[in-house]
């Protein structure tokens, strides 16, 4: 499950051209877009419920988010395995029965956990509401955590973690977060690693569920073709008796955040690699940063769209790669910024140097008015398409709950973009883009690129087949 906001940060943009004079911001009309109306209610047990009616197709998305994720792991992978474990049977109904029942209706139910949230999301035809809702609630409230099914899932996950490393692109983000955050909870890969997942027990899952899956630690968002008052009655019937048991303990994630004092390179050796996949970056911003929208626009220019500087230089001008980009990934109390691309092993140095040189343009030349106007247009013009589907809207409301922002994120977005000036961009570049002590992850053939790696910082070399994602 991905965080909607993070993906917005990676890929945004929007407007059409116009002129700006002095410090006055340009405004380009791209059509008005605001969040569709919805209701929020809080049940007596503290469960928050958002309901948004969308009748374009006869479908409903129902998504629950629990405020618990990999940052709460006591054994790496616990939050993720607990979320996946919800589907191993519930309220006495077996895993196979649940799956058969859902599949027969054409419905789906997915679970997962990321850094800070655990998610249970179901998509189904509106006519099947009364059949899906009990399963959805049983899975959340009364998972059986069947031992036999758990053992099978655990074994597949352990093998799956090794298989994922066959694709550098699939795992490089986990190595990078570990390099940046080390032992801080933001360094925990939500997947866990093959050794930690092998150690997990069903009792740990039960205890974790007991501690965190509680109504006052959860929000449910429903988007689609339904009657709100009927829905409210049905939800109260299935979730109204859900009791809080203990206070869900949350770590203070603002403590012990890393300070990066030197450049480091994590070289991950994959001997049969035919290309080098790499990430360069550092610390970013947290989700509540008031400059979030402005940074989205500036990043669009650097590496957030096809004509961005990074893609233009590395791909279009140099032909070194199929794509290069950059982006902020914000979490509640911290975040990362990264530039990412890949190239054949022989052009590794050329590509890294060109990425760094292009990044330095932020400080050396800054942004011109025409480029800013274009980025503002792009960010605004692409924004509505990110909130068109029921699943996207439900995801947005889950993020609102998890990260504590409100409708202004959507409804003030255009205004914030419109108001951005060149002077603002200069401040944002100075304040937020990491310029010193950059951190690098390179996945590739170490025999070919180890000498290159050491030119960028203190090198730690590991094998991609080592368990986990670094120290």
């Amino acid at each position, binding site marked *: 499950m991905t965080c909607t906001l993070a993906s917005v940060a990676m890929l945004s943009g929007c407007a*059409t051209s116009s002129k700006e004079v002095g410090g006055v911001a340009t405004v380009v009309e*791209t059509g008005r877009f605001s969040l569709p109306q919805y209701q929020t209610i809080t049940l007596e047990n503290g469960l928050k419920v958002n309901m948004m009616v969308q009748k*374009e197709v*006869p479908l409903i998305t129902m998504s629950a988010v629990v405020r618990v994720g990999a940052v709460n792991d006591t054994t790496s992978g616990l939050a993720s395995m607990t979320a996946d474990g919800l589907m191993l049977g519930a309220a006495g109904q077996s895993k196979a029965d649940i799956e058969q029942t859902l*599949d027969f209706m054409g419905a789906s139910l997915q679970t997962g956990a990321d850094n800070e949230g655990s998610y249970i999301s179901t998509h189904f035809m509106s006519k099947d509401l009364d059949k899906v809702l009990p399963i959805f609630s049983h899975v959340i409230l009364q998972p059986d955590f069947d031992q036999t099914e758990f053992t099978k899932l655990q074994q597949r996950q352990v093998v799956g973690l090794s298989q994922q490393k066959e*694709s550098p*692109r699939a795992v490089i983000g986990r190595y990078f977060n570990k390099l940046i955050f080390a032992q801080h909870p933001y360094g925990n890969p939500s997947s866990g690693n093959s050794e930690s997942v092998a150690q997990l027990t069903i009792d740990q899952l039960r205890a974790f569920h007991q501690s965190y899956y509680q109504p006052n630690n959860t929000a449910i968002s429903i988007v689609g073709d339904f009657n709100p008052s009927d829905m409210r009655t049905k939800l109260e019937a299935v979730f109204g008796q859900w009791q809080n048991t203990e206070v869900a303990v949350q770590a203070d994630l603002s403590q012990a955040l890393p300070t990066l004092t030197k450049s480091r390179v994590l070289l991950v050796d994959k001997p049969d690699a*035919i290309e080098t*996949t790499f990430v360069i970056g550092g610390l970013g911003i947290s989700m509540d940063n008031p400059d979030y929208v402005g940074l989205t626009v500036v990043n669009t220019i650097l590496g957030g769209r096809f004509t961005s500087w990074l893609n233009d230089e590395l791909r279009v001008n140099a032909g070194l790669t199929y794509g290069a980009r950059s982006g902020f990934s914000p979490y509640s109390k911290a975040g990362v910024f990264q530039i990412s691309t890949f190239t054949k092993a022989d052009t590794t140095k050329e590509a890294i140097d060109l990425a760094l040189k292009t990044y330095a343009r932020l400080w050396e030349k800054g942004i011109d008015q025409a480029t800013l106007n274009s980025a503002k247009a792009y960010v605004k013009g692409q924004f509505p398409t990110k909130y068109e589907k029921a699943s996207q809207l439900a995801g947005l409301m889950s993020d609102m709950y998890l990260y504590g922002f409100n409708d202004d994120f959507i409804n003030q977005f255009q205004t914030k973009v419109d108001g951005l000036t060149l002077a603002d961009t200069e401040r944002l570049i100075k304040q937020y883009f990491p310029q010193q002590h950059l951190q690098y992850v390179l996945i590739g053939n170490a025999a070919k690129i180890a000498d290159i790696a050491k030119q960028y910082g203190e090198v730690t070399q590991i094998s991609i087949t080592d368990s986990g994602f670094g120290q």
Partner: protein
Amino acid sequence: MTLDFQRFILTINDRKQLKGAKYETYANGVAVVGRSCGTSVVNATTAKDIDSFTLDNSMKIMVLEDSSIPNANMYLFWKVGSRNEVPGITGISHFFEHMMFNGSKKYGPKMFDRTMEAAGGANNAYTTEDMTVYTNWFPANALETIFDLEADRIANLDINAEMVESERGVVQSERTTGLENSNWRTIQEALKSVAFAAHPYSWSVIGYESDIAAWTLADLQQYHKTYYAPNNAVVVIAGDVKLAEVKKLANQYFAPIPAQAPPKAVRTVEPLQKGERRVFVKKESVTTPNVMLAYHVPATSHADYYALDLLSAILSQGNSSRFYQGLVDKQIATEAVTYMPMSFDPNLFYILGVANSGIDAKNLELGLIEQINLIATDGVTSNELEKVKNLKLMEFYQTMETINGKADTLGTYEMYFGRFDKLFDAPDRYNTVTAEDIQRVAQTYLIRANRTVGVLAATEESDK
């Protein structure tokens, strides 16, 4: 994390990478099914919501007004893909897709993207074995800019030698990163070359490395002249637009582009396969063997398409599927998927299994084949059949949830079935499929003599 821009993806030929995003996989293999009772479809799009007209130059344009967001899409489907290539220029259809962004008369190098993005728009494109599709997503008030940009590159593409050289590097990187990151792509490339002896589906859409390095400016110029004529395309526009405005702009920008003689037909018919074929690919970092099976099946326009598509879902869709129950749940495979592309000519029905630890390629292969043979011998239950019909109906609605899904699917149906409104007939076509039909197509097509087996592993099994 997504490293690359989605632009210039080769095709949806890597289903494995789509795993976990089931409700977003409307592209290509979209299929529609429905049962006529019980569902309120008051607001869902129907065939009568779509207007279509044909310009004097034979370019067909479909329009769907939808004001749910202040945006619109324009999709251009061109009837040219790797199927139209010959050895020496393999991959050129896809390479040409890249060149369509690299400059024309009014909007020179880089200006297509710069102009579109400054107007709030984004774009992408994909090439398949059969067609090349250009996709534009933009605020609706940028509609005329999009028409202007597209008309310029259709009528007046300027193929610049310098741009060709840097784009070669991009496509080589695209080829490399696909092979580095996708086992599916690695094994499929080898398997296709064995499964097809004559037909151009034999090579991958991205083409051979040596051909990418070798094609000439003249090859590209000829390709544009041959295939990028308005009579070889269909266009779909969906979103917050008005039919009258679209007609006016289409007449202004697209109608003046002259039609040309239709391209030569693809003549080669793949000879009947008369025995199992095999291929092995070594990749040292593969942790457990991957086994791909491929069976020749008819073109999408054939009456058996719907039964085969439902068979595919019975085998692999959801955890109640045959493959999950028979292989994944039993710890033989960590995943097992099927893929049947829509296709102009007879093509392949793919199956990919990834072995669990301790399971060798042979056992995985036998396990996959056992599941297929069970359907051929014992058939499927009425419950299974009804289930996959419901799954298809759900997919249909999910497709119709966005202007993007609507535009892509309407054009896809127009291309593969000859008429976009077949999209809305599909529910009835699926509904007529019986359990006997499913068993019959399994017995007809999913047989050993018609099969190619590909194995991808770190080491080849010894002769002893």
